[in-house]
């Protein structure tokens, strides 16, 4: 049954709501939750926004990090359609996805950076060379759709490089928990 509102609109059941895409970080966070569960809280995979890096349209660091021009992609197309009235703000959502363990203090294993515009897709991904090589991609690439992003994410997380590091971190964490000495576990 549709709700009656003063606006005469029902956002809960409107077609636009049904088509709304899920922010990419939501899928990434799922991997974090699962890693905590399967490692019994020994490892944690975090998704954090990169606030320190002031990303904007002309920022050369952004161009370098992802090696692409978002202006020429869907954002620009939509901008042309909307004209000046519906100006899209130059906001880029940049996130880092990494694995940590309380048993290996200060260590951070970065899996990837990813970035998207208010359009959400495409999503740009910047990977370490080893992971990129494992999955047969370049270190910087774009996922045009949500489906493509989810597929790439799974490939990345299940790559040999990532699995090897996570296994090693888990081994160290388990040993450190048992011995109550992270430094020894790491060096041993």
């Amino acid at each position: 049954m549709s709700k009656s509102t003063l606006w005469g609109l029902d956002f809960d059941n409107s077609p636009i709501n049904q088509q709304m895409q899920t922010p990419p970080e939501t899928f990434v966070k799922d991997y974090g939750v699962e890693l905590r569960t399967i490692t019994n809280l020994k490892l944690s995979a975090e998704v954090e926004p990169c606030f320190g890096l002031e990303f904007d349209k002309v920022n050369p660091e952004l161009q370098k990090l992802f090696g692409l021009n978002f202006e020429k992609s869907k954002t620009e197309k939509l901008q042309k359609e909307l004209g000046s009235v519906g100006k899209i703000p130059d906001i880029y959502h940049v996130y880092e996805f990494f694995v940590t363990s309380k048993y290996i203090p200060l260590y951070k294993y970065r899996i990837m950076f990813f970035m998207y515009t208010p359009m959400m897709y495409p999503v740009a991904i910047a990977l370490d060379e080893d992971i990129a090589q494992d999955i047969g991609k370049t270190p910087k690439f774009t996922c045009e759709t949500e489906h493509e992003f989810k597929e790439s994410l799974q490939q990345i997380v299940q790559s040999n490089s990532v699995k090897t590091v996570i296994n090693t971190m888990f081994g160290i964490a388990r040993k450190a928990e048992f011995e109550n000495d992270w430094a020894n576990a790491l060096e041993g």
Partner: protein
Amino acid sequence: MNILFWNTNRKNPENITACLCELLLENAVDLLILAEYPNETQALCETINKISLTAQYKIIPTIKKSAPIKAIIRAKYTINPLQEESRYQLVQISQNANRLIIAMIHGKDKHNNDDLTQLEIISDFRRDIIENENRLKCKHSLAIGDFNVNPFDAASFATSGMHALPFASLLARPTRTVNKKTHQKFYNPTWQLFANKSPPHTSYYFDNSGQAQNLYWYALDQVIVSKGLINHFEDVKIIAKTKNHDLLANGKPNKKIYSDHLPLFCRLKEDFI
């Protein structure tokens, strides 16, 4: 703290190991960092620990198996690995209350990679040094390794690269703004090597015969420090011989017997860490 970096090359593992033992003991090296070292550092550690009467060493552990750099350090220091990427890695070294971020790199070479590819790696390296400085609230960083670029290449001194400048006084203002973006400065003492009157000048020799631009000696191996470390930085030099090993032949690195690079040595003031 005495730090020695050497791109040992992979070709002469036995000569290199024998030479490394002497290098360490003769120069009282606290931290040894190696690129392209073909042997196990655990074995190197054990060999040195047997020879040395005073200093005991341990390996700096890596979590990634394909770490680009191998390192050993005096056992008295506490090590925290911070980050490992395909071309570089960062660790925190501490003793008592003093902490230091050591960022070690083996950049992409000039023969197979263009300037932009080299710049990209170094740019990422710098970003991660700054990120870790901020994360750990530690302003003492020392970056060392085979950058595979010279101090005068854009990847070393431009804002988009290491932004490492040859004049410490320029760091009185720690940042510079270009295109509305603020860039942290670093100090590059490697420039000092270019003024040496006699060999060894820098760590790498290449005779680009017949070409208009031929510098002969190149400083691909560099040490770069953050502002917080300038007053603790004492010395940088190239080492070309030990008691039983001469790393030069005809005044150039003896790559047939040792390596095409010479070891780079630097020292931090003893009271720092």
